[in-house]
């Protein structure tokens, strides 16, 4: 059974993606008999390229992929390079999980209200500093260059890359390397950049690629913060696919392929940039420069990451104020009246979506954790585990859903489901979530599992315990903390899913995320505040349990503190 796990995972993930892509590729060339397309043609592409503003949509999607990743990665690298383990650094590290648990949509709403001309920042500075009596007519949120979209993504991708980097740093003994370089006269930040970064980067390349793919194809954040005339390619795709003129689906399919192409192009360009930086960096690396820029780099890293963390937190605080606000005239910093009315009104309608969200996220996460544990345990028992940081097993394909844009294959998948006559159900949505929950659970679980000292299981076996005993009585309880963290990550990923829920559930399955994004069009900030807070608090609950439960259980076990 255990031996089947890796194959089951691979089939589960690769099958739907390939089927979805195929069903996007055929209509893209005019073939979809159900809609009367029974011959190959290039018409869908001609229609696509005739769309107003297409070039601009593509350009924004592409640059959002590259710029978001470049900025997030730079900030994370500078912070890690300059981190010295003081109080501030520790606080930032502790904030990683809560920040990661804020769903993208909620963070985007928070940012939108923070930076809008009538937003919190503008109110705080008006009229004292700015002299504004009414909001300035500035195009900030949903700007045509996609800058606010990229900012919203950066705020969320920094914690993700930071978490991935912290996990990878365990593998490369960074402290020794820095100590050695410092003994040769290098300042710590410079030393880190020269001797740790080159080894760290290959270990986090995959998460970096995932960020590129995500940022170049995201839908919900782009709907909230992205440009509108035209919107990003992914948002346009959604409109075309829902058009009552069904012939537009051919064009939408061509668009899905174009989206795949844009994401791949962004990945390829990034790879090109990598080569360039490596070449340029080689000279700097060996140039012997030991001191210059140390202070500036360290301060920049710290300041930028603080800015991102505070932006996210203040954004959420802004949502909280909004959810309690009565009339709130500009430029008042706080609402004139405070009311519980928005919460009271929303409460009756919160129950259903919250229950559905938890049920879907819980089921998808349990399934994912089961499969991941089975695959990892199989690796342990067969003694065949990939060398650290290497991706050589069939499980490499696990990361496909992180690289292939959701929107490119989900439409095709819906067409497959329609052709099979499958009714949209909760199970279909759970299955859709599993595609994205699995890789993240694997990403956060595998490191701890593979690094787990094999002698523990050996002790158990030589004491006569069966391999199953060793798993249930030793490995699992000792890995409880990372397991719970992986589950919290899984829950957070599932709770944040917008597109799979919308498309596979045919709009019938409503979760807090689909509700919150649906309200975005209405622009009622008070109501959005309520929903976004609920949306953000659900995954946070998971992380609180993940941190609290082991502490509670192992309160009397010193050896279990500071997880293995």
């Amino acid at each position, binding site marked *: 059974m255990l031996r089947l796990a890796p194959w089951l995972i691979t089939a589960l993930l690769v099958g739907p993606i390939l089927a979805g892509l195929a069903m996007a590729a055929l209509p893209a060339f005019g073939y979809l008999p159900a809609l009367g397309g029974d011959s190959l043609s290039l018409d869908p592409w001609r229609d696509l390229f005739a769309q107003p503003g297409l070039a601009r949509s593509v350009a924004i999607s592409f640059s959002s992929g590259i710029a978001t990743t470049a900025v997030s990665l730079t900030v994370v690298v500078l912070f890690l390079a300059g981190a010295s383990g003081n109080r501030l650094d520790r606080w930032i590290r502790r904030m990683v999980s809560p920040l990661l648990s804020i769903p993208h949509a909620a963070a985007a709403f928070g940012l939108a209200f923070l930076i809008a001309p009538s937003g919190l920042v503008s109110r705080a500075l008006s009229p004292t500093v700015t002299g504004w009596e*009414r909001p300035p007519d500035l195009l900030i949120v949903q700007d045509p260059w996609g800058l606010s979209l990229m900012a919203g993504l950066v705020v969320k991708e920094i914690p993700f890359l930071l978490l991935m980097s912290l996990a990878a740093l365990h593998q490369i003994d960074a402290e020794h390397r820095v100590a050695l370089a410092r003994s040769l006269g290098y300042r710590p930040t410079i030393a880190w950049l020269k001797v740790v970064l080159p080894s760290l980067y290959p270990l986090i390349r995959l998460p970096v690629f995932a960020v590129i793919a995500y940022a170049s194809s995201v839908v919900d954040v782009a709907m909230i913060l992205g440009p509108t005339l035209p919107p990003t390619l992914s948002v346009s795709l959604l409109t075309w696919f829902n058009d009552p003129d069904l012939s537009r689906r051919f064009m939408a399919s061509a668009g899905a392929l174009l989206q795949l192409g844009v994401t791949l192009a962004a990945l390829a360009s990034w790879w090109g940039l990598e080569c360039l930086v490596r070449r340029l960096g080689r000279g700097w690396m060996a140039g012997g420069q030991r001191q210059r820029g140390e202070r500036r780099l360290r301060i920049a890293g710290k300041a930028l990451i603080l800015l991102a963390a505070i932006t996210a937190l203040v954004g959420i605080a802004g949502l909280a104020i909004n959810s309690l606000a009565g*009339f709130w005239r*500009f430029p008042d910093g706080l609402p004139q009246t405070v*009311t519980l009315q928005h919460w009271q009104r929303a409460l009756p*309608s919160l129950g259903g979506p919250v229950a559905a969200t938890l049920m879907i996220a819980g089921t998808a996460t349990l399934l994912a954790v089961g499969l991941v544990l089975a695959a990892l345990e199989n690796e342990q028992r067969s003694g065949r585990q990939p060398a650290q940081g290497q991706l050589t097993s069939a499980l490499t394909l696990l990361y496909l859903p992180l690289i292939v844009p959701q929107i490119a294959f989900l439409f095709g998948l819906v067409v497959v489901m329609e052709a099979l*006559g499958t009714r949209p159900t909760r199970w279909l949505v759970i299955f859709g979530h599993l595609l994205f929950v699995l890789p993240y659970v694997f990403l956060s679980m595998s490191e701890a599992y593979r690094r787990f000292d094999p002698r523990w299981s050996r002790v158990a076996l030589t004491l006569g315990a069966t391999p199953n005993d060793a798993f249930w009585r030793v490995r699992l309880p000792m890995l409880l903390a990372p397991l719970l963290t992986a589950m919290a990550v899984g829950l957070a990923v599932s709770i944040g899913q917008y597109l799979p829920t919308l498309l596979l559930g045919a709009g*019938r399955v409503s979760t807090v995320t689909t509700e919150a994004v*649906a309200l975005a*069009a209405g622009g*009622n900030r008070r109501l959005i505040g309520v929903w976004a807070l609920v949306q953000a608090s659900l995954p946070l609950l998971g992380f609180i349990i993940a941190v609290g439960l082991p502490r509670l259980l192992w309160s009397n076990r010193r050896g279990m503190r500071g997880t293995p």
Partner: protein
Amino acid sequence: MSLPRTCHALAASLPLAALLASPTTLAAPDPGDWQAVVEEARGQTVYWHAWGGDGRTNRYLEWVAERMQAEHQVEVIHVKLGDTAEAVSRVLAERQAGNDDDGSVDLVWINGENFAAMRDSDLLFGPFAEQLPHFALTHPEHNPEVVTDFTLPTDGFESPWGKAQITFYYDSDELDTPPTSVAEIKAWAEDNPGRFSYPRIPDFTGSTFLKQALIELSDADEALYAPVEESDFEAVSAPLWDYLDDLHPHLWRSGRQFPASGPDMLRLMGDGELALAFTFIPSEPAAAVADGELAPSTRSYVLDGGTLGNVHFVAIPYNSPHKAAAMLLADFLLTPEAQAHKQDLAVWGDRTVLDVSRLDDDQAARFELDQDNPAMLAPDALEQTLAEPHPSWMDALQEAWQARYVGR
């Protein structure tokens, strides 16, 4: 009875049983036999696809769901749409996939071009509307708008639900005399740059503004009430584009960005970004003042010469598996109870389609509008209602707008 004879009897009865069984499973319920509809509906679930971008509307739908459950044991699930077109697209896709009797849409909130599209493709169940018990309260003989949708007769394929009319509102603290015509709006915007806008096309409130402007600016009214193919679209619409080209630089964000919807415009009013806005729901400004979303100094009015108004409806797709419950729901929406609750400012504020003057006094009393509310329209304001042009104009205008202003 001997064995062979039993077999024979069974064999003989089988085709008959099949014949008897098929109407109950396949045939649609007959709205003429209302008692049967009510009984068949019990225990069914209605998936009601309706625009979900407005909190007040959503709350009203929740109330409807509760009442339907209590009264008829019918579960109503609001499937929240970003655009009604999504429901049309879904039903079409289902028909293409050969799903003719187990569709996922049971009832859809609809009017105008979406209704026309579904009628054209034979995607609707009916006629049923005029046989609903409470339909008579609308008195169509005196109120032709409840059986006419964007110039097209509804033929009983959709049931009226509510009334909308473009209503402008402004903050009286900032603005003494608001502009009262489309032309004046432009002049006002030139003097007050950045304080007015309209929702991004293809939003329906935004599209209605285009039609409102076109009616005032063009002198080809007759053409607008016939299919667009019958006239020279470019010539008829030219004054509109000239107007918009002039207007856009003076709009909010210099016309490089537009609010997402009517409610989004309301938020911008609340934030003080806009000083003048409009809505499709006449009592929405008053309701928003009550909810603390707009300043108490907000006032409502309609343009001289009237504004566009229409009735919105609910319709049942041809492949809905729960037509009985859907009809029961459509009828419930026409009850004085549901209509009065809908019109209540504290709930939604959407005006009734019932002919209040012909209700008995007790029931009519429930529909009295709160005229004390200063944000409320003057009682005679809605007397001048401009009729909606032919639905094909909506599509044509939307497409032309996007080709002209997207990606600039």
